[in-house]
């Protein structure tokens, strides 16, 4: 499992898990899974299993962190010790601190922060099982949890990665592809406003490949966005149907 496979893409063009280059992993999303949080969501993307919980807007604690003219968004991305093959120390690592910041900055543009000054919103992202592309799946889930908490927002934020593996640009890398591949480009954006809120690149790509990867990631995002909307709607529709029976 830990060795690098010889070929990440076979002659027929199918990847290690049988996907085509522009194919997403199967995505399953649920909203409102936690009763103690104001809003919550759970996402499974391939082998990734991620839980997001949102609290607030509420009084900021400690109070000196509150801002007089805007709401403060705080994020904590955390990986469970059992989320990877080798036990991960539960203490926040350098990577987790960075991802917390990246997720916060990807979500913040979707919120009307000046609407509720002096308050804070806390987003907790818990990775239960990781298999590459967790920052993207986390953003997708956290954005849904914010909508579920009833916090006004410009648009749902969706994220998806593309990268380069064995000389080909592919969508939604999994862990082995991420580690053995050449490059990884996570993209988060708000589809209705067509605004990108996160764009990173790890590795080396030519300008053409980069453009190709970004476009591919955005196409992937749109597919997940359709699912996000559907999940939110079915949750609130199901209550309606139950009554009508």
């Amino acid at each position, binding site marked *: 499992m830990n060795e690098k496979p010889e070929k990440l893409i076979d002659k027929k063009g199918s990847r290690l898990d049988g996907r085509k280059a522009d194919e997403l992993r199967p995505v399953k999303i649920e909203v409102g899974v936690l009763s103690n949080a*104001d*809003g919550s969501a759970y996402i499974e993307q391939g082998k990734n299993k991620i839980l997001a919980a949102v609290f*607030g*807007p*509420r*009084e900021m604690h400690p109070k000196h962190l509150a801002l*007089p003219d805007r709401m403060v968004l705080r994020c904590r991305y955390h990986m469970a010790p059992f989320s990877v093959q080798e036990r991960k120390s539960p203490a926040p690592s350098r990577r987790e601190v960075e991802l917390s910041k990246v997720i916060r900055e990807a979500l913040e543009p979707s919120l*009307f922060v000046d609407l*509720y*000054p*002096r*308050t804070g919103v806390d987003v907790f992202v818990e990775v239960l099982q990781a298999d590459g592309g967790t920052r993207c799946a986390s953003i997708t889930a956290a954005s849904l949890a914010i*909508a*579920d*908490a*009833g*916090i*006004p*927002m*410009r*648009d*749902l934020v969706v994220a998806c990665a593309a990268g380069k593996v064995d000389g080909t640009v592919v969508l939604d890398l999994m862990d082995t592809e991420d580690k053995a591949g050449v490059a990884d480009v996570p993209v988060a954006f*708000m*589809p*209705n*406003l067509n605004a990108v809120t996160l764009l990173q690149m790890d590795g080396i790509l030519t300008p053409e490949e980069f453009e190709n990867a970004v476009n591919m990631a955005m196409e992937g995002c749109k597919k997940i966005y359709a699912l*996000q*909307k559907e999940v*939110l*709607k079915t949750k*609130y*529709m199901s*209550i*309606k149907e139950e*009554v*009508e029976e």
Partner: protein
Amino acid sequence: MPTFFEKKQLVTPGELLAEGDYLAGDNTYAEGNKIYASRIGLVDSDNKKINIVALRAFYVPKVGDIVIGTVVEIGFNGWTIDIKAPYEALLRASDVLSRPFKPQNDELSQVLNIGDLIVAKIASYDRAHDPQLTVGEPGLGKITRGQITKVTPTKIPRVIGRKGSMISMIKQETGCQIILGLNGVILVTGKNPEDEELAMMAIQKIEEESHTSGLTDRITHLLKEEKAKREESKNE
């Protein structure tokens, strides 16, 4: 100037609702000449104004609202009250005592202690200041008896019903007094706990089925049925 929704359609944040000469109402926002949704809810247009009845939202204080809150902290000259809003509310001691407050004479915890529930009105609130409460009106003050139930604040209008039809029906059927806090906290006081539970059950039913039509009739039916059932078990 097209609109992109049907009446009472369920929308999610970010959905484009209309383009052109429209106004952004509740839970929507305008970007250029386009109107988008900002919360999950049901769309409705009122002439040129587009509103969303939110299915998920929290309470935002408004001057004049009646709310029910819990005392969470005793300060030097007043109390801090949790009103289930993004902001904590303040209640001044002089407002409760209706005379000048002197720290050497009055022990605040004797008047209202931590954990006590109060019915209060929002006296002032703006962007820069936390809401201030007042209890200086009839019907307001410390809650001494009854039971508390909670609903999503956006559903309070549904509990009231058209011209108060729903709430007066529940009051009549159960013989309970009901005080609705606009922050989603509801106080039910009846002659006995059974009546209170009946009223609370009806309110929870409204919360669950708030967006369906013909609700008042269904709740009336439910209450009558439930009452008959209880009557029967008493006679046995």
